[in-house]
């Protein structure tokens, strides 16, 4: 049996976490649940059978009135959003009203005797509204910071481009002067000087050679990181680097399958340097093997040879800039090139048995890819 004021229906409505008010077609209140009592301080007895506009003055607003009318004239449910109607039901005290936001929905329904009713449900959406405003604020802040970062990056790109141009011009000019210098040095040596003069001229030639290497190093170092890293197949890289007269008589074995690493394009130079070092410093190198080994946090690429190996006393210094029996730039550059994408290189060979370089490639920077 339907008894709007007292029955089970209103008892059930009392348990809802939303305010519920039901009105008749003549706009009198037929149900006022306990949540509304608590929120508004208006008891059900004070609201029942009164006109809705008298109990909740906001419903007297012509626009809101018109919206309610739509519900009774077959328009279906009506939504009064918190944006346009922040607080239709007044809360108990002014202090409670501060910042509170409600969302109202009004749905028509028929009771068993065929009469039409409209159920007004009131939700407290203060928390979600505050969250959205905070979210908007954070989003705006991030957007602002991203724009600032973009501007900084653009400015940096311009500065880097200018520096690169300056460095290239300087290197070019230095090379020209050095070529002229070496030319005159050759003329001087062709005069067959003797004694100290001959010694000094030879030292000048050696110094010029070092200068040339330093200029080449500056060019390579500048190129590092200028291009985006890309994927390189280790097998192809080693095979294409280990060709030419320097490697005649050396057996190159590559057992890395389809392994690819994410690296700066200068990795081509790094791999060549490692292979060339194996031949030059190994002195008696006849076999170079390249393989990989899976470890817990990535993989290790092992490059080992059967040459004379790295002397124990210099092991710790071979990756330093300026150290070495050739130019002192090779292994330093190799370490720097690999380091761009998080790879680390160490030497673990045994003197007399051969050199062994281990390149640690972190997870995410290698993959196995069929071409």
């Amino acid at each position, binding site marked *: 049996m339907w008894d709007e004021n007292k029955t089970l229906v209103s008892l059930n409505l009392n348990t809802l976490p939303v305010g519920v008010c039901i009105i008749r077609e003549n706009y009198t209140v037929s149900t006022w649940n306990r949540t509304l009592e608590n929120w508004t301080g208006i008891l059900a007895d004070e609201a029942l059978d009164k006109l809705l506009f008298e109990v909740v003055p906001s419903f007297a607003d012509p626009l809101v009135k*018109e919206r309610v009318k739509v519900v009774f004239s077959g328009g*279906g449910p009506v939504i009064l959003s918190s944006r346009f109607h922040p607080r239709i039901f007044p809360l108990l005290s002014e202090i409670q009203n501060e910042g509170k936001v409600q969302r109202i929905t009004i749905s028509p329904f028929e009771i068993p005797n065929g009469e039409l009713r409209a159920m007004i449900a009131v939700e407290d959406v203060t928390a979600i509204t505050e969250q*959205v405003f905070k979210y908007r604020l954070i989003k705006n802040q991030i957007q602002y910071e991203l724009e600032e970062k973009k501007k900084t990056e653009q400015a940096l790109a311009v500065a880097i481009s200018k520096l690169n141009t300056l460095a290239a011009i300087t290197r070019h000019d230095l090379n020209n002067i050095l070529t002229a210098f070496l030319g005159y040095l050759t003329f001087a040596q062709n005069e067959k000087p003797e004694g100290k003069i001959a010694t000094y001229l030879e030292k000048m030639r050696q110094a010029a050679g070092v200068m040339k290497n330093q200029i080449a190093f500056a060019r390579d170092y500048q190129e590092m990181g200028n291009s985006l890293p890309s994927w390189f197949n280790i097998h192809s890289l080693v095979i294409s680097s280990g060709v030419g007269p320097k490697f005649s008589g050396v057996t190159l074995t590559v057992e890395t399958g389809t392994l690819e690493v994410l690296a700066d394009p200068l990795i081509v130079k790094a791999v060549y340097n490692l292979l060339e070092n194996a031949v030059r410093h190994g002195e008696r190198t006849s076999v170079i093997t390249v393989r990989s080994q899976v470890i817990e946090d990535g993989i290790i690429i092992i490059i080992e040879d059967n040459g004379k190996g790295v002397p124990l006393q210099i092991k710790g210094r071979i990756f330093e800039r300026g150290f070495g029996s050739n130019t002192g730039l090779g292994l330093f550059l190799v370490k720097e090139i690999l380091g761009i994408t998080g790879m680390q290189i160490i030497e673990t060979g045994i003197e007399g048995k051969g050199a062994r370089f281990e390149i640690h490639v972190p997870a995410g920077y290698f993959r196995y890819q069929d071409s």
Partner: protein
Amino acid sequence: MNVSLEVLDGVRELITIGVGRSAGMLNRLTKAHVTLTVPEVRISDVASEYYLRSALCTMNPEDTSHVILKFSGELTGSLNLIIPHSSALNLVIILTGEDGSPDEMDALRVETLLEVGNIIISSVMSAISIVLTSRLSFQFPSYQTGKCDSTSPVIITQSDIGIIARIWFQLQQKEIEGDLFILLNRESFEHLDTCIRTAMEKGL
């Protein structure tokens, strides 16, 4: 499909009445000068290619916002307001007078669009109810986003007949276009057809 001019006029008139009422409500609600016009009303089989073409011709079908009201009873079907997503966002921003140019339809903006859509849809529904003889049952209006093509739930429907009314919102020198779809099963459309003829005989 064959729809008499008389019924098409009747449908157009009911929609125009509803949309006109909703424009008045929107004006008072937002204090913005909103003009709503219905330049075009078409009725066709939902399954026909023509229906899809006319429904989607002006939209980016990849990205639309829908406000949907389902109903049953004397008429069974749904009323759908579909607006390109970026236009829907623009509409909400203009109506609420928000600053900046946000790119996201967050929860508050969805709620606002739901009310704007609800004002239009319920006004049109209320106007259609004028010619009906009994009350309809309604589901609560819902909001959806996404594709509006042949795989969309709006298109794949149990309904047979689609009434498409193009709506132009004009506000602050901007024009925003949306489509109002009234999807009905065949029996419902035939009933609506009869109701409109009866109402016209009596004088709508």
